């Protein structure tokens, strides 16, 4: 800490702080345009000039000057104010005075400063710019006439997003921010540049002209897409969520969002939302009343174990716990599951046997504190973009090394120094076992392993997995595997990251245990910057696991439930928010099961393909209309409260389950807070938590690891037949599950399903970009648009699973790798 005097006030600040940060920390405001908490100091705008007693005679930029011991700083002397006024005059010289039509008005740093410093006239005259405005994409509008060249957009795109779409081009008075070759913007549209722009140069087009900043009420919430648990501020007017507002003080990610979080909110107020309960009468779904619909459902729920349920992990913890209570206590069934029954296996089976707890042994904050990241699948960036940003920052700013094990290249493999091993798909466990074997052979095992059970078994099992023996099977060289092993084992701190989800059936319990084995063998768990981080797919996937909403004690899992529907063992199926017809593997089988089941009730926001087959459809609320908690992938429990009133006649799932419990003769807690008290009392790690304590920032639910080494045999992947390609499914950056299909932003950037193939494969089958090709497997065939990229290795094709119009489960039966033939 250093002691200094700012405006006659004695203050202390950390050694690393700049004058600006020291002042801000102590509540002294210095005006600035080019500074953001997350970015490195830049010194572009010259608004933050201050006088320092020790450096008399010149004005010092506060944002780039480190605070040192004994500094005496004045932030608002008449000279300084005069200088700032001139800076503003010079900025306003070329800045168009179009505040009435500029969407930034009201939230504009330049406007606020001009008002604050009373810059009413300008001593200088110059022509305004006449740059062409970029309207080429539907999400980000770039008007360089308003730009003040603070460089924040270019810096955030480079430093955090790692895309580098924007940069300064031209020189002198002609300088502007532009894209490569001064072309249209074509990036991943995360909108980070919009969030930091101090003026109206970069604007969100989905929000354009919708409302003024001051007319909206701001509601803090938590993003409902992936498991990262990013915090959002929703801008609400007239019971409509109009935008997400940037707040650099929010969350571990400091307000940073991805394309889904920033541009995917439109599903909340979508016209397609269901507003009234629907009941099937004479074969058609007709509008009905809640009383009628709930009576029907309650009557059908009295079936004991012939009732089964599937829930989406987008429900709150309270709703999942109450749903489980309804099923177990009032209905009397153990047949319930979430996430297709396998997407949570890494946690509920893998981590349970390896760490004794169904939670990751690391948090997202460990990413930047580590020395080496071992990332399994480059898809980590696509499934959890904000974790991807953390990885970018770790590698670029903290010199963290990154090793990637993936079946294709991706954005992460472009990071400086990234060591990417592109292996034949489906061989992750084999390679992890080979790495474990190398660690044992090269005596890199940590001393702490002596007290861990299962070492002898593991060593015995691993004898078949020497790097030399398995390398060719995985399409790698033994030296590569050995290098990755020694890199991992010799790093002081190392973190293993892998995503799970419905599209990643290969990321199962075995993969989790194989990864955990590495951490346990080298003693890299339970410490800062170490551990195994399993990135769960949906916003409350970890919560669903913590609430125990999965098949246990002989209950049917999702696949068994669907089988039982077909055989008639399950007569009533309650689907809360899932869309199995699109997101579960093997569409034919799912369709047959849903057709066969006697009675199906779906509670949903939209009339999805699954809901359209139901006997009763209950319209329920989105996350913006309800109270509860979400648990992020690293067990951060966060509180959400309603930002808008329920739309139409929709009710929260909580209310639906509570009403059904009362109809079945039970008693349900009245409020979500009361339900959470129950959860806190019975769930490991949630003990000290309550809605009141979570209101502000949320809290981590601690998990204690008791390690065990588990010998996991790799399931051999059948070699691709000649002439066939290996299909791997996955998530695409802009989407999450099937919900993001109702977000305008994601649908603008990635509107339809596709199949991505390598250049050699494309030229071999004479397929060009955007060709419609027929993809066939033993399961069926479908038509998809081709996308030819250089990131795919030859022989491997990739397809995202989110799209109702091009459901990849037509050809995909849930295998980690599927043999496909492509034909034009």
């Amino acid at each position, binding site marked *: 800490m250093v002691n200094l005097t700012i405006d006659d006030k004695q203050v202390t600040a950390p050694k690393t702080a700049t004058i600006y940060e020291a002042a801000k920390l102590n509540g002294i405001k210095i005006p600035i345009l080019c500074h953001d908490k997350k970015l490195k100091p830049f010194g572009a705008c010259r608004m933050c000039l201050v006088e320092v007693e020790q450096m008399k005679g010149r004005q010092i930029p506060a944002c780039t000057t480190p605070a040192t011991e004994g500094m005496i700083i004045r932030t608002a002397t008449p000279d300084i104010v005069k200088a700032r006024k001139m800076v503003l005059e010079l900025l306003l010289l070329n800045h168009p005075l179009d*505040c*009435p*039509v500029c969407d930034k*008005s009201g939230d504009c740093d330049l406007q606020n400063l001009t008002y604050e410093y009373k810059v009413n006239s300008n001593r200088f005259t110059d022509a305004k710019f006449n740059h062409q*405005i970029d309207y080429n994409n539907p999400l980000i509008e770039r008007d360089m006439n308003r730009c003040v060249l603070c460089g924040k957009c270019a810096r955030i795109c480079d430093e955090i997003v790692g895309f580098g779409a924007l940069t300064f081009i031209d020189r002198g008075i002609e300088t502007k921010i532009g894209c490569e070759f001064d072309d249209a913007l074509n990036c991943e549209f995360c909108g980070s540049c919009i969030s930091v722009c101090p003026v109206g140069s970069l604007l969100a087009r989905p929000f*354009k002209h*919708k409302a*003024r900043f001051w007319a909206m009420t701001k509601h803090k919430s938590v993003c409902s897409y992936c498991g990262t648990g990013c915090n959002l501020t929703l801008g609400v007017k007239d019971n409509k969520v109009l935008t997400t507002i940037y707040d650099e003080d929010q969350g571990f990610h400091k307000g940073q969002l991805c394309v889904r979080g920033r541009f995917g909110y439109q599903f909340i107020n979508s016209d397609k939302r269901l507003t009234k309960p629907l009941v099937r009468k004479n074969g058609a779904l007709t509008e009905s009343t809640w009383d009628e619909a709930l009576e029907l459902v309650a009557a059908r729920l009295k079936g004991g174990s012939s009732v089964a349920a599937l829930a989406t992990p987008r429900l709150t913890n309270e709703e999942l716990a109450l749903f489980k209570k309804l099923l177990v206590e009032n209905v009397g069934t153990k047949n319930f599951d979430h996430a297709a029954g396998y997407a949570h296996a890494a946690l509920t089976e893998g981590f349970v046997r390896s760490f004794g707890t169904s939670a990751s042994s690391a948090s997202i904050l460990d990413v930047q504190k580590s020395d080496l990241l071992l990332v399994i699948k480059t898809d980590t960036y696509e499934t959890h973009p904000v974790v991807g940003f953390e990885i970018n920052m770790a590698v670029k700013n903290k010199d963290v090394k990154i090793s990637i094990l993936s079946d294709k290249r991706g954005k992460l493999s472009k990071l400086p120094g990234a060591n990417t091993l592109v292996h034949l798909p489906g061989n992750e466990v084999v390679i992890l076992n080979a790495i474990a074997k190398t660690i044992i052979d090269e005596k890199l095992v940590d001393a702490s392993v002596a007290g861990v059970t299962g070492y002898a078994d593991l060593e015995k099992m691993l004898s078949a997995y020497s790097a030399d023996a398995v390398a060719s099977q995985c399409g790698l060289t033994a030296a590569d595997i050995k290098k990755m092993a020694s890199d991992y084992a010799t790093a002081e701190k190392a973190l293993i990251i892998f995503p799970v989800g419905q599209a990643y059936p290969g990321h199962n319990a075995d993969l989790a245990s194989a990864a955990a084995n590495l951490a346990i063998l080298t003693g890299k768990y339970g410490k800062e910057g170490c551990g195994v981080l399993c990135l769960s797919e949906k916003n409350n996937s970890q919560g669903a696991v913590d609430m125990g909403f999965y098949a246990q004690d002989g209950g049917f899992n999702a696949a068994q439930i669907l089988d039982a529907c077909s055989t008639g063992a399950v007569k009533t199926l309650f689907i809360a928010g899932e869309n199995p017809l699109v997101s579960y593997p093997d569409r034919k089988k799912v369709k047959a099961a849903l057709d066969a089941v006697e009675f199906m009730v779906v509670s949903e926001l939209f009339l999805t393909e699954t809901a359209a087959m139901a006997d009763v459809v209950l319209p329920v609320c989105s996350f913006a209309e309800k109270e509860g908690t979400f648990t992020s992938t690293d067990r951060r429990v966060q509180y959400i409260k309603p930002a808008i009133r329920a739309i139409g006649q929709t009710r929260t799932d909580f209310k639906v389950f509570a009403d059904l419990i009362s109809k079945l003769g039970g008693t349900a807690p009245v409020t979500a807070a009361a339900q959470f008290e129950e959860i806190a009392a019975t769930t490991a790690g949630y003990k000290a938590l309550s809605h009141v304590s979570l209101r502000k920032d949320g809290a981590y639910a601690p998990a204690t690891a008791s390690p065990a080494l588990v010998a996991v045999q790799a399931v051999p992947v059948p070699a691709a037949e000649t002439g066939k390609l290996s299909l791997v499914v996955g998530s695409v950056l802009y989407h999450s599950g099937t919900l993001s299909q109702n977000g305008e932003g994601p649908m603008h950037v990635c509107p339809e399903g596709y199949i991505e193939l390598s250049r050699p494969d494309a030229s071999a089958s004479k397929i060009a970009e955007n060709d419609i090709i027929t993809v066939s497997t033993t399961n069926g065939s479908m038509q998809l648009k081709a996308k030819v990229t250089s990131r795919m290795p030859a022989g491997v094709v990739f397809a995202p699973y989110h799209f109702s119009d091009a459901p990849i489960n037509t050809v995909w039966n849930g295998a980690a790798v599927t043999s496909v033939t492509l034909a034009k």
Partner: protein
Amino acid sequence: MNPITPIINGMKITLKHMFMKPVTLQYPTERPKVSQRFRGLHGLKVSHSKAKCVACYLCPTVCPAKCITVEAGEDANHDKFASVYEIDMLRCIFCGYCVEACPVDALKMTGEFELANYNRQDFIYSKERLLEK
């Protein structure tokens, strides 16, 4: 006093006033000449055959009676315009703040004061009705 005198005096005044120029305005046959500063019905000014209003939302912001509804739209040239501009005359208090707040001089208050109507709905003046003729 003669009891007839007061009646005659009274009749005198009555007769005098019968032939005097009347003090009150003979509305509706006679129309008042309203002052330039009179604050009557709003008018949206027109320039280059379209409304000058750029839908900046300052008038609904400043309006103390919250009677102005604006919705902005984007035209083919990406210019901002008011796709909806409505004033609820039942709530308007004719303070004129909206005119004062307008940064582009798009709004005025006309001399029009005959705002009576039969239906409540008719008091909500849409953009078409407000555009100056």
